């Protein structure tokens, strides 16, 4: 990639992205363990193999930008700037969590950092992001919204409606589609006649790009460019980021019943973390060990913080229903 574009490797930037990806990878590994130990409740949707997307995309956003993500969005939550201690505490249902333990991991929300919500409903948060973009457009602000979702989400009516309006009104919003080829256990080709998702944007006249979602710099640059266009009033961009979750759909899915071992193995080879690591190695960037250790520590500290945090009080049950 550096070869293609020509500019000198920005090692500070790359190291930052690498670190972000490692944090996510390590956090999710640990969450899986906590789930298996019965400490983490409910279903857990990991993004193993997709780590370049949150890291790359959020690095191109500003704090004032708004995002909505899904149940598979831990990486964005962290990369957008939410405090990892409070994120993990929420995932473990603690009072110190982002949402006081009320929302849980599918509903991580942090207005301060522009996180308008993870979501448990497929397509449920897309209009929210478009609405934030409407706000920013009205204000003429240098702010945009980004919404992240999977390939299967394009089949939901709510997505269609929101995209149509976003384009009609030329709102500053980025539709970041993580095309990991499956929606739960159903391959894309069995849920839609048009599997090249960019083509579907013809219905809305939305600028659409397909990129390698495992190339963190490509993700970053594409989002950055889309952001620039959005604030200039050029309207939304749809980014189809090709990727793959090498893990299962959720903690109890080994991910093997509906995919061949060869297919999974092929994508494991393409892990964005390995790839970036190779680039860094090739460029002889130093100090990676410290970065890696630092990333582990951040995660371990956050888990320790969460585990040491109190559970909510029953007396808080009826609070926060109305403002």
């Amino acid at each position, binding site marked *: 990639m550096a070869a293609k574009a020509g500019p000198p490797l920005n090692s500070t930037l790359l190291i930052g992205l690498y670190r972000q990806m490692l944090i996510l990878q390590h956090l999710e590994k640990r969450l899986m363990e906590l789930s298996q130990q019965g400490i983490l409740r409910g279903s857990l949707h990991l993004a193993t193999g997709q780590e370049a997307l949150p890291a790359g995309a959020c690095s191109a956003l500003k704090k004032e930008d708004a995002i909505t993500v899904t149940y598979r969005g831990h990486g964005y939550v962290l990369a957008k700037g939410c405090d990892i201690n409070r994120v993990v505490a929420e995932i473990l249902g603690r009072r110190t969590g982002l*949402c*006081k333990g009320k929302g849980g991991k599918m*509903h991580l929300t942090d207005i301060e950092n522009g996180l308008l*919500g993870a979501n448990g409903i497929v397509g449920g948060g897309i209009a929210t992001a478009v609405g934030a973009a409407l706000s920013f457009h009205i204000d003429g602000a240098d702010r945009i919204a980004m919404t992240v979702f999977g390939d299967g989400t394009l089949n939901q009516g709510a997505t269609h409606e929101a995209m149509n309006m976003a384009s009609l009104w030329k709102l500053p919003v980025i539709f970041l589609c993580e095309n990991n080829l499956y929606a739960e256990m159903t391959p894309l080709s069995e849920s839609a006649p048009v599997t090249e998702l960019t083509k579907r944007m013809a219905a809305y006249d939305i600028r659409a790009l397909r990129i390698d979602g495992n190339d963190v710099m490509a993700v970053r640059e594409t989002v950055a460019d889309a952001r620039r266009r959005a604030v200039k009033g050029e309207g939304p961009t749809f980014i189809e980021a090709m990727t793959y979750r090498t893990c299962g759909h959720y903690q109890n899915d080994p991910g093997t019943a509906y995919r061949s071992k060869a297919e999974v193995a092929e994508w494991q080879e393409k892990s964005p973390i390995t790839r970036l690591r190779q680039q860094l190695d090739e460029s002889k960037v130093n100090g990676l060990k410290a970065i890696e250790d630092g990333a582990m520590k951040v995660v371990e500290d956050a888990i320790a913080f969460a585990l040491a945090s109190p559970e909510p009080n029953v007396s808080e049950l009826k609070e*926060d229903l*109305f403002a």
Partner: protein
Amino acid sequence: MTSTFPQAINAALHAEMKRDKSVIVLGEDVGRFGGMFRCTEGLFKAFGEKRVWDTPISESGFIGIGLGAAMTGKRPVIELMFIDFSLVAMDQILNQIAKTHFMSGGNARAPMVIRTQGGGYKGAAAQHSQMLEALFLHVPGLKVVTPSNAADAKGLLTAAIRDENPVLFIEHKQLYSESGEVPEGEHFVPLGKAIVVRPGKDLTIVSYSFTLTLAIKAAEKLAAEGIDAEVIDLRTLNPLDWDTIAISVRKTHKLLIAHEAYGRCGFGADLAAQVQEKLFDELDAPILRVCGEDVPIPFAKVLEDASLPSVEKIVERARELA
């Protein structure tokens, strides 16, 4: 000043948009055209295209957009042309909007109003005549407002727009042609306060929205028969003004609830369950209800009339009680 109900709504919208530039309006035909029921007349002209948005026929989409706008500092007032159409947007209303504040542990807010219109008696048939407030009361997180007259429409809408929470504001199509005295200038009727519109001692009739106007007529008829009914206009169904109801039931010891929505799992069932639980020893008779019948609303006039509340039905049930 005498105004029609839509004029009263319109006045509140004009005033609040002027007062607070974060108030924006979205909906089908609300802009250039001024709204199917004329409630948004003149707003587009007065406030321009950045404040008043004509939307495509995408209720789930534009209600969801309202949420995103509300979470980022706007106060959207959305017109949903018929409450029956809420059913294409239920995920946004009940899974997203109603839960936003709670799920975020209080860090996010959704100060928005969904203004909608419901009710029967006009031959609009099964998909354009419903009163569906119960669906929005069942799933927690929304305030639900049901004005019965033009003045309250203005005052309650003002309060709804200023509220920090999502509010479902249900207008009744039969009320659109009614007029009444409406205070000029700012008029604020707080959410959650019922009003005794007719004091009485023999029984309590609790109602709201258009059915309230039937209840008042019924009370007049009953008075002629020597039955002195107290009539309460709830105005807001959530929050519920329990005290006003309890005081009245403690006085009359008899309760009749009248509303147009389907009876089963309706608002009346809920209030009856609460009252019999909390005021069991105060009751001299079973709590009775006049509701819409539990069938889709039929088109033919005789059937539609038979399926909905009427002055006569209220009078009859009240007689049984008194």
